[in-house]
């Protein structure tokens, strides 16, 4: 095949990278704020079924219904339950404050939320701990992605599918476009934009699942830290990369506990001896005990009445992971009326949806670079769930529209784009080299071995030494086709993420979040020294990763009551 890529230039006012939940909402909000703006979404797959939500979602986990639970309660709960003092409270307050309007927006588009006989929304607990406030509202959301893409289509927004973004175009702390290529046609694109919104999701392909199946991950494996890496290379600050998402999942299936979907199910957790174990606070002592042992735990439903069994089955079979769950139950002949389900820690990932890592943003969804906004799992709004992707997607669209109004388009140097394209496509020309999936397998095995808690300084130093070697090998990748060329690009993103986690974890000399950051050489929480964020950025002169700390932020003017 001819491997010289053709270049295609795209000019737009607002560029949204990633057409998932946050990206769709951002584009829609940008259109509302700027009726005359030219808006373009670049999507790695097809917007109709892309991102984490391809086949839907079962609930909004953060909704503060007026007259019910309050944003203040939400901020307190997310702090105590998840973040433990290392928090930027305004981010969470704004999220909760705007959550109900978001529910109403989705309702207007045809999503049905659970209500009781009197027409009130049924809200259940979001937190594991005994903190006030019920914020989870179940919804009939299987068609959510179809609805989002339909709403995008109504608004004269250009959608370019099957296009992987390879880098942001930036200088002097300002972002003015991106480059990438179409994985079907091989056309190399470069895009000039007045404002760029990153909505590329987290890094689902990070640790290796114990099944050995590279795509059998907890998080959507199409997201490979693309936005983390590209923003990092452009000079943006990132945060919380020592906090890995680490869940107890169904063994070899990488789907969360039944209790995660329905905390009120009254299922029991039992140990290998068949004895019931306490499992109240999902983020604390019980899970750390399991992390440090090699034992299995089981979830037991057999004591529950049929009605409750059916409720948990209904939620499971209508969740975003319903297809694997249904296959699992059918093929393994599992019936929760009699069978226990085995769980363990399966794979770590990076994502602010359920975890904490991301590009540092403020309440305007602005990153530390001019013209660059971020929303969804790629942005550091910890434990924001789907609601956060929508709320901050909306905010990012509004902010970007405002910014684009008084910003001029930039000229792009075509020669440098051509060089970039040639370098990427050279991987198709090599007669020998390393296959991207081979490289990725080794990299991700290293991540599992050295970056999965429990960690210690020696392990993390080992990881950093290995990363030096991986950086040499990544220059030798050889691919057969455009699909694999995409995998080669993704492998570099994953590698950057691995370094971010290794360096950040080495910096934080304490254990704050248990299973997400356990340091066997610093086993205790240390508020005296570590009530602060670990942030990172690329030194634009040396190309090295700089790790530094920043203070936590409490809300202004709170505590008056």
């Amino acid at each position: 095949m001819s491997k010289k890529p053709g270049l295609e230039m795209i000019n737009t006012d607002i560029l949204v990278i990633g057409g998932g939940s946050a990206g769709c909402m951002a584009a829609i909000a940008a259109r509302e704020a700027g009726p005359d703006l030219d808006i373009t979404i670049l999507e790695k797959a097809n917007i109709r079924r892309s991102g984490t939500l391809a086949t839907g979602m079962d609930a909004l986990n953060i909704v503060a219904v007026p007259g019910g639970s309050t944003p203040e309660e939400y901020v307190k709960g997310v702090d105590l339950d998840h973040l433990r003092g290392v928090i930027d409270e305004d981010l969470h307050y704004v999220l909760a404050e705007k959550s109900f309007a978001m529910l109403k927006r989705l309702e207007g588009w045809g999503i049905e939320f659970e209500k009781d006989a009197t027409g009130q929304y049924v809200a259940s607990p979001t937190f594991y701990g005994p903190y006030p406030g019920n914020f989870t509202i179940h919804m009939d959301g299987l068609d959510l992605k179809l609805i989002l893409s339909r709403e995008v289509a109504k608004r004269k927004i250009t959608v370019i599918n099957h296009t992987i973004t390879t880098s942001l175009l930036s200088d002097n702390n300002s972002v003015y476009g991106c480059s990438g290529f179409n994985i079907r046609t091989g056309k190399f694109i470069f895009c000039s934009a007045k404002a760029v919104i990153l909505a590329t999701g987290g890094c689902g392909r990070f640790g290796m699942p114990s099944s050995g199946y590279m795509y059998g991950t907890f998080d959507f494996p199409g997201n490979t830290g693309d936005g983390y890496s590209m923003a990092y290379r452009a000079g943006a600050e990132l945060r919380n990369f020592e906090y890995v998402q680490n869940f107890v999942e169904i063994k070899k299936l990488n789907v969360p506990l039944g209790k995660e979907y329905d905390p009120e199910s009254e299922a029991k957790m039992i140990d290998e001896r068949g004895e019931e174990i306490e499992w109240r606070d999902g983020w604390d002592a019980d899970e750390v005990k399991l992390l440090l042992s090699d034992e299995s735990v089981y979830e037991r439903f057999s004591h529950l009445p049929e009605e409750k069994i059916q409720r948990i089955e209904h939620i499971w079979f209508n969740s975003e992971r319903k297809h694997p769950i249904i296959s699992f139950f059918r093929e393994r002949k599992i019936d929760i009326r009699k069978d226990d389900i085995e769980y363990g820690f399966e794979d770590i990932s990076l994502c602010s949806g359920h975890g904490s890592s991301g590009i540092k943003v403020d309440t305007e969804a602005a990153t530390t670079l001019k013209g660059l906004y971020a929303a969804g799992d790629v942005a550091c709004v910890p434990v924001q769930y789907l609601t956060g992707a929508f709320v901050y997607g909306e905010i990012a669209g509004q902010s970007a529209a405002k910014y684009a109004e008084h910003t001029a388009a930039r000229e792009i140097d075509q020669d440098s784009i051509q060089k970039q394209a040639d370098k990427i496509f050279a991987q198709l020309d090599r007669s020998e080299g390393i296959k991207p999936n081979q490289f990725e397998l080794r990299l991700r095995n290293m991540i599992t071995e050295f970056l999965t808690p429990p960690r210690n300084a020696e392990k993390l130093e080992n990881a950093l030494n290995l990363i030096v070697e991986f950086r040499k090998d990544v220059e030798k990748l050889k691919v057969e086709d455009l699909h694999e060329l995409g995998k080669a690009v993704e492998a570099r993103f994953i590698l950057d993420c691995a370094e971010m986690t290794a360096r950040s974890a080495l910096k934080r000399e304490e254990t704050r979040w248990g299973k997400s950051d356990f340091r066997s050489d610093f086993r205790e929480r240390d508020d005296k020294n570590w009530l602060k964020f670990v942030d990172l950025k690329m030194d634009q002169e040396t190309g090295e990763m700089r790790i530094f700390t920043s203070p936590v932020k409490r809300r202004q003017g709170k505590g008056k009551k």
Partner: protein
Amino acid sequence: MNERLSVEINRDSCNGCGICVDICPLDCLRIDENEKAFMKYDECWYCGSCTIECPEKAITLRLPYPIRSQNSLR
């Protein structure tokens, strides 16, 4: 080829329309020389998009075990 893959396509009912190829979020599928869809890359997250979108209901999803060591299947 008789390994059990996660995306099983009934070749009798597949009409070769290519919708599944277009919408697979992980770009796993392609159309072969006989105008039938097949799983080219063993990189499925079993999200189920293809099974829902197939107009002929020709696609069944299975847990992808036993797993394969190669990404590209042919």
